[in-house]
């Protein structure tokens, strides 16, 4: 039986209509974990559910079919059994399961490789499992190791560098002009999924004032209300502000905004040179204008003003493609880090077996005995010294008898988590990790 396994589905193995049947909200995941904890099938469990994957990492206690068991619990919580065949689930055991979690945390398994949210999602999943008390020695160590791997890949490679969506590219560009988006005002002209996503991303990154300009004021008010409550309202209610204006109010509005996103279906320029050139020229400070509309909403001549940074959808697309290419080039580097850490984790896990610990403990006591015999033995005759050696050997054996018997027993009968916890305690009590590090090879 494997010591650690993972079963799950992801965007690579299942279409969205199957994934959504297994996607678990935070409270649902907590209830699934509570159900798992009440039974004795998994010794430890960690449940990760995002829009792209639902997977459970577990330390099995019995030979029961983990997939059927997990789906039962999901069905109990959701009230309906997910319509997912066993063939779309993947299962990885031991080192492969470790590798899988490290790859997930490093964002190598994400739909957009290098995206930043996954590490936070793994952390949330871990906190949920800790609250549900379904983690112990093995998953605690593994998950913290995975956090480090995710962080290492992020800092040592370009896997997460740059923006990978039009919305993120808007934030990226804004951050090259403004050191902080706090206190900045965003003007959203028109509507549309991409423009709203860009406005949402800017607000989520710190901008705290939103003005929506639309042909119909009612639509502008509705959109301003929705976006403000969805983003800034949640982050900084007391500072947040949102207002709506008609398209004819743009000339007087643009003087007081820092970022403009336009996406109307007007079919002709909405931000025109005669209307805005003078206002923009005389305003203090830079303004970033992102024109997502096709045909374009912004008169290209406005981009010639010294304090105007104008980008259209092609510019953003070029930036995103360049960033994705950079990320792609760094995948081998990230994979090498993951493989290295999988090897290290494997060595750590092997050191937590009972046999090497017993051997190390015996060596440790023998070293202490020899050190003291060498130090004090000179005061004794040869015969007394031999007796002293026999006496101290017997004493060491006696001291070690109970811990060694316990370790052997745990090795034979106990669940991996229980054994790991016991071995870990012994190693900490006798500082065996430091001793192992000192040994050659």
């Amino acid at each position, binding site marked *: 039986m494997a010591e650690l396994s993972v079963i799950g589905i992801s965007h690579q193995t299942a279409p969205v209509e199957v994934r959504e049947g297994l996607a678990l909200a935070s409270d649902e995941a907590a209830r699934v974990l509570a159900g798992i904890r009440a039974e004795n099938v998994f010794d430890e469990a960690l449940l990760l559910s995002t829009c792209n994957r639902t997977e459970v990492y577990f330390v099995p206690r019995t030979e029961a079919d983990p997939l059927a068991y997990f789906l039962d619990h999901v069905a109990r919580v959701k009230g309906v059994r997910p319509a997912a065949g066993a063939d779309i689930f993947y299962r990885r055991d031991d080192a492969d399961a470790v590798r899988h979690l490290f790859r997930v945390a490093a964002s190598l398994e994400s739909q957009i490789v290098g995206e930043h949210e996954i590490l936070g999602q793994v952390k949330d999943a871990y906190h949920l499992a800790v609250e549900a008390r379904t983690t112990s020695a093995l998953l605690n160590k593994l998950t913290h190791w995975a956090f480090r791997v995710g962080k290492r890949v992020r800092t040592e490679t370009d896997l997460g560098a740059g923006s990978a969506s039009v919305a993120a590219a808007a934030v990226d560009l804004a951050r090259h002009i403004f*050191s902080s988006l706090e206190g900045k005002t965003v003007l959203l002209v028109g509507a549309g999924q991409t423009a709203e996503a860009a406005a949402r991303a800017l607000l989520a990154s710190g901008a705290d004032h939103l003005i929506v300009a639309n042909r119909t004021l009612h639509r502008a008010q509705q959109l301003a209300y929705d976006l403000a409550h969805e983003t800034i309202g949640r982050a900084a209610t007391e500072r947040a502000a949102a207002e709506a204006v008609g398209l004819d109010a743009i000339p007087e509005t643009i003087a007081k905004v820092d970022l403009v996103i336009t996406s109307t279906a007007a079919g002709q320029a909405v931000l025109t040179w005669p209307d805005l050139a003078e206002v923009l020229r005389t305003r203090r400070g830079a303004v970033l204008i992102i024109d997502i509309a096709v045909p374009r909403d912004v008169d290209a001549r406005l981009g010639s003003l010294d304090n105007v940074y104008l980008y259209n959808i092609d510019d953003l697309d070029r930036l995103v493609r*360049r960033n994705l290419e950079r990320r792609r080039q760094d995948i081998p580097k990230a994979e090498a880090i993951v493989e290295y850490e999988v090897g290290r984790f494997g060595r750590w896990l092997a050191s937590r077996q009972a046999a090497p610990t017993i051997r190390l403990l015996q060596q440790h006591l023998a070293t202490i005995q020899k050190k003291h015999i060498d130090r004090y033995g000179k005061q004794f005759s040869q015969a007394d010294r031999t007796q002293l050696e026999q006496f101290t050997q017997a004493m060491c054996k006696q001291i070690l008898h109970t811990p060694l018997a316990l370790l052997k027993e745990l090795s034979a009968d106990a669940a991996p988590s229980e054994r790991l916890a016991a071995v870990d305690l012994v190693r900490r009590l006798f500082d065996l990790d430091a001793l192992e590090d000192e040994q050659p090879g």
Partner: protein
Amino acid sequence: MADLLAIGNWLLPLLYLVLLVDYGATFFLRMRTDARSPWLLVVVAAHLAFLVLRGVHIGYLPVTNAWETASVLALATAGVYAWVELASRDRRTGVFVLLLAFLFQYTSSMLLAGRVAEPSEVSPGAVGMWARLHVVPALVAYTALAFAGVYGLLYLLEHRGLRRHRFGVLFDRLPPLDVLGPMAWHALLTGFVAMTVAIAVAPLLLGDGDGEMTAKVISKIIAGSVAWVVYAVAILGRWLGKWPASRISTIAVAGFIVVMALLTVSGLLS
């Protein structure tokens, strides 16, 4: 002592070069941008020790000619940058500032090679009270204006890159415009004030010496006045005309070139 000074004179540009390579790697290879470099502080301390030793050995403050001043400028530039790095925890602009420090020190070391342990031909005017009151603000001005030049140049590079939609190394690595712009502006303002004090004291300095209007003195007066006017125009433009940061940065770069010309001319004529 003479040997020690000779070794120090030879070693200092090398140390700045090593720093430059380290900061170059940070910038171009995107390594450890938030890590503070202990080596920078080591080099600054070593440089300070070298100048103190040299001052003790030759018996005067080593700022009597342009080549000695260049070494002090290298130290001041590196020292101020070390402070900026400690405060901002961002070492991305280090390569540009330290390039300047390296060039200052390299120039100084090359021109002092073989006579680093010997006193220069010090004019009586160079050691008087007015001289000291001129030299200190002048050094502050040179350093601040060097910073204004470097950060102004970085601002212009990023500003133009963003306007031309170029997404290259500079786009990835440079701090945002509203960090670079104010840095250039504040450095320019500091440099201008210090330069004004140095220029105001300059006529009194002539009284310390023989009062002779040598070619060196005349060149310094002309170049210094030109640089002062350039910076004054920038400051008035910003205060009265609300000039944009790009124009102020252009002037900071131009002014720095004039100031460097001033230093070079006065060095060649000394």
